[in-house]
């Protein structure tokens, strides 16, 4: 099925795509037909620069991998000293 259930979010990030690094402004998360991962459905993440179509990093993974990754991200952030998170916009 094409689920159409898509989460869209604004992000402030850099990603490395086809033409090198780019500033990513948007991301979408959805569960749908993968292009490359060999399964009927997969958790898909696209990190995008919507002003430049070559600015895309795509990920397709099975549901358990996606959950493990999401938890790893949250654990990592939970373990970061608070003062570093407060300074996240600093260069």
């Amino acid at each position, binding site marked *: *099925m*094409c*689920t*159409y*259930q*898509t*989460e*869209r979010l604004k992000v402030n990030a850099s990603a490395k795509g*086809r033409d090198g690094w780019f500033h990513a402004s*948007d*991301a*979408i998360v*959805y569960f*749908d*037909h993968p*292009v490359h991962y*060999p*399964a*009927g459905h997969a958790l898909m993440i*696209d990190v*995008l620069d*919507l002003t430049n*179509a*070559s600015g*895309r990093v*795509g990920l397709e993974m099975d549901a358990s991998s996606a959950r493990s990754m999401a938890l790893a991200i949250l654990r990592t952030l939970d373990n970061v000293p608070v003062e570093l998170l407060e300074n996240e916009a600093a260069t």
Partner: protein
Amino acid sequence: MTVDLTATTIEIAGDGGDQIEAYFARPLTDARVGGVVVIHHLPGYDEATKEITRRFAANGYLAICPNLYSREAPGMSSDDAAATARAMGGVPDERLVGDVAGAAAFLRAQVNSNQKLAVIGYCSGGRQSVLSACSLPFDAAVDCYGACVVVDAPKDSPFTFTSLTSKLANLSCPMLGLFGADDTFPTPEQNEEMARLLHEHGKSFEAHTYQGAGHAFFNVDRPSFRPDAAKEAWGEIWKFFATHLSA
């Protein structure tokens, strides 16, 4: 029996006169033949859709598939373009109708067109095929498992698709629906509701729902492919087009 064909990438005038990419396949014959506008699925203007377009030509029809994501990601791979289009909320309905009108005009302008045209779409293209046939003059329409015909897109998604129920009374031609019994986008109940509404409006609608098949059962390069269902459904398409696209 299939015939020889030629296929090429071209540009056509789409909505608002925008030049958009399209894939055009035609049988190598001087005979006057019908035409088919092919609307690609949500994953985009990809190899599988081009193969489907060639299949129509091999079976004796002029066929064109407009790249609905031409504007979002010109020249990009189909998956990059599809990701960008998804993030931007999908193809606006008005623009889709304009692009399909451009593709239809291109087919009608071919010297060996018999002026009979069908529109067919897969996945999101199924809904867009219904929308096109409710907005433009066609001789036949095919909806292959299009969701959001009688319901809106999920509210928490960026998609702006809305139900087409208010437009069904304007359907311009007979329609064929090809669905999987295990599909949940659209559900069999939603397909039955579409059939009920179309019949209420006095429209000709023939539906086939295949057991053991879900969404995208035509897709030969994905695990959703169901050869038995696809073979039967292709047979229904050829019968339907023979009836409605003959001069």
